[in-house]
């Protein structure tokens, strides 16, 4: 197990390194002069020179990359050009919205998708199965930002149960902030839950046809016992498989959803930074998102190995 974890960890570090090179190259090297990109065509030579000095654009690309990467490792992400505060503080503050949103959405997706898939598989071919599968078809086809708009018009503008947008901030206590995150989390979670339910149902039906389920029944296990004791665990393997990619969809969805609800998270930060051409912020947030995806994929790999003894050697 440890061997497996170390092996995956080494490839993870290599992956992060390669990703950082790509991000750095795209933002700071390929466009030529990042300062000119940030200031636009009409900038005076003096302001350009001042920004170049501020961004430390003096050295060659390699020296600048090492400087930037070193800063990343230390947690020093530079100073935002538009906000005039350290990017690290900005990111930390905005992550306080985005991370709870992602966790809430993930939890909701699992809490809805898992039982739905289980019930559909156990009652295969019944009206309940048909209803669940029909609902998941719609769920997969829903663009989450449109679904979010519908939720707002029904539950916020219409019923008034939840705020239609904005975020009070954690210093206002937990309850109002959670209320502000409910609709965004639901909008994010439902399409994910639909995917989870479908994958789980298919995986369970596949394992239920296996000989070891028949062997378990021959031992005296009831159908339900066979599903819970042998089917579910084995079905988790194909369910885990796409979960890394699904998480990256979740992150992308969160970035978009934050814009529907005017949530001051990383998603809004990155779009504001794009419009203001604050490349330093864009670079940092993108790198952070990639780190999150890679870390989740690593966790998924470990979960695989924990479930499947064939992967631990």
């Amino acid at each position, binding site marked *: 197990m440890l*061997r497996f974890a*170390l*092996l995956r960890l*080494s490839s993870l570090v290599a992956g992060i390194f390669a990703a950082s090179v790509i991000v750095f190259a795209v933002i700071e090297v390929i466009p030529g002069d990042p300062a000119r990109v940030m200031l636009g065509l009409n900038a005076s030579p003096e302001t350009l020179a001042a920004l170049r000095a501020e961004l430390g654009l003096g050295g060659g690309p390699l020296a600048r990359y090492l400087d930037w990467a070193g800063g990343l490792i230390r947690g020093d992400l530079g100073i935002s050009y538009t906000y005039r505060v350290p990017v690290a503080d900005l990111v930390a503050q905005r992550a306080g919205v985005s991370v709870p949103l992602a966790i809430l959405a993930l939890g909701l997706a699992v809490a809805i998708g898992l039982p739905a898939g289980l019930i559909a598989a156990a009652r295969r071919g019944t009206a309940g199965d048909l209803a669940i599968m029909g609902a998941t078809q719609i769920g997969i086809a829903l663009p989450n930002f449109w679904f979010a708009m519908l939720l707002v018009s029904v539950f916020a503008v219409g019923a008034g149960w939840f705020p239609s947008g904005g975020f009070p901030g954690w210093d206002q206590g937990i309850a109002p902030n959670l209320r502000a995150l409910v609709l965004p989390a639901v909008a994010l979670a439902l399409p994910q839950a639909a995917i989870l339910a479908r994958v789980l149902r298919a995986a369970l039906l596949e394992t239920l046809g*296996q*000989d*070891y389920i*028949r*062997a*378990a*029944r*021959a*031992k*005296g*296990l*009831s*159908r339900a*016992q066979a599903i819970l*004791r*042998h089917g579910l*665990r*084995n079905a988790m393997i194909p369910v885990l498989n796409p979960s890394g990619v699904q998480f990256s969809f979740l992150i992308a969805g969160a970035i978009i959803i934050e814009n529907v609800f005017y949530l001051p998270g990383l998603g809004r930060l990155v779009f504001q930074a794009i419009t203001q051409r604050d490349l330093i912020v864009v670079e940092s947030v993108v790198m952070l998102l990639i780190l999150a995806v890679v870390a989740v994929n690593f966790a998924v790999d470990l979960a695989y190995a924990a*479930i*499947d*003894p*064939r992967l631990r*050697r």
Partner: protein
Amino acid sequence: MTLLSVRGLTLALGGREILAGVDLEIEAGTVTGLVGASGSGKSLAALAMMGLAPEGAATGGSVRLGGQELQGAPEADLCRIRGRDIAMIFQEPLAALDPLRTIGDQVAETLLIHRAAPRAEARARAARMLARVGLGPDQVPPGRYPHELSGGQRQRVAIAMAVALRPRLLIADEPTTALDVVTQAGILRLLGGLVAAEGMALLLISHDLAVVAGMAGRVAVMEGGRIVEAGPARDLIARPAHPATQALVSAAGHRPARAAAPAPEPDAPPLLECRAVTRSYPLPRPHPFALRPRQLALDRVSLTLARGESVGVVGASGSGKSTLARAILGLDPIDAGEITLGGARIDPARMPRALRARMQAVFQDPYASFDPRQSVGRLIAEPFHLAPEVPAAERQDRVAEALRDVGLSPDDAGRRIHAFSGGQRQRIALARALVLRPDLIVLDEAVSALDLAVRARILDLLAGLQARHGLSYLFIGHDLGVVGAITDRVIVLEAGRIVEAGPTAQLLAAPEHPHTQALVAAIPHLPRP
């Protein structure tokens, strides 16, 4: 005392009748054989008796266990009976074990589910049960996972799972068909010993009458979803009345009539020669920075095969016989040694077309041997890739000729491979191997996946083709009984090494090496009438 009484058991799947009224009686503490060709309904009959017919199957008739009717009994009652009163062992020992749970847990589950013991005691009893089926804690501890075990060991786990509560009836559905013959003999011995010691009744299901005949007092023969003949094993084998029984008797231990190979010309060079062929495979690294340890699959293997001769290579799974086949065919490289065909060196990196064209092969799995998207004619013509000079019209004629050679019709060239059964597919594979008229045909477990009766006909075909075309065969298999039926000389491989070699008749009559002796002893025989 009658333990199990089956009356008029029927089963239909999707409107198709599969069991057309099965009648069967099993006495307590006896061994009963249920024999039939594949597709005769044996396995579904066994599942239906346990109340485990596939979803959507309609069953009828009566199954009484010690007076209690099982057909239509409430599911909760059946759950109490399964595992405690009736247990079952399946054909594929890997598929029948949950890959994610330790073998000890899976055996203990039988005890736990029937509340026969608290958890800790169930574990201890499971460990004792595993030791009893030959998986002692020193060699195979209960904490192992199924993928760490060999096929025979997995089947032992399945047996331990099934007999943990000493059921009154054990149903074994082709328990040894997926195993090699030496392992098969061991499993059969274990089953026989267990049922005798515990006073269990055993229903042993097989397509091979010889496997069943050694153990069963009574045998029932099944065909077309019915029991067509039943009686004491001895009488049935001595005087088979029904054609299906007669076919099974004649298929068991069938030896095709074949002439011995012509004596080779004294100074003629061998057609195929292997000199000290060695090959090893890398194993996973023990830690990320270690050198990869290597497993020796072939250890200085030398053999010769003369033109027109048929040589067998026999060994258990893992003995290296398939590695040898791939090396000879020029599919995989070797580490050391030399392989020559007609004096030309076999080197997978550089195989001139003319050299490749001199040998062809037939593989084990008739269902994996053909690209499912191509017509039979195109499949058979594939080796012409090696002979671009042959014009299209002649190719067609030769495909037709090859089809006739293997007992099929030239019209079959236009059909799709789906339309053919396993035995017919092996004929088509043989036609593909013949179409270039090669010097050597490598038969890599070519009849192992076939039913006994089908296998007998393919062996006859092979013998006939060899006589007609003067072919040379390298016949690779795990069953010395089958390999011996079609070869002049046999080479016995164990763990990558040749342990014995000699003329087939001599090897069968007086094996010298203990491994050869085990192989000979493992050949299932019909008791002599």
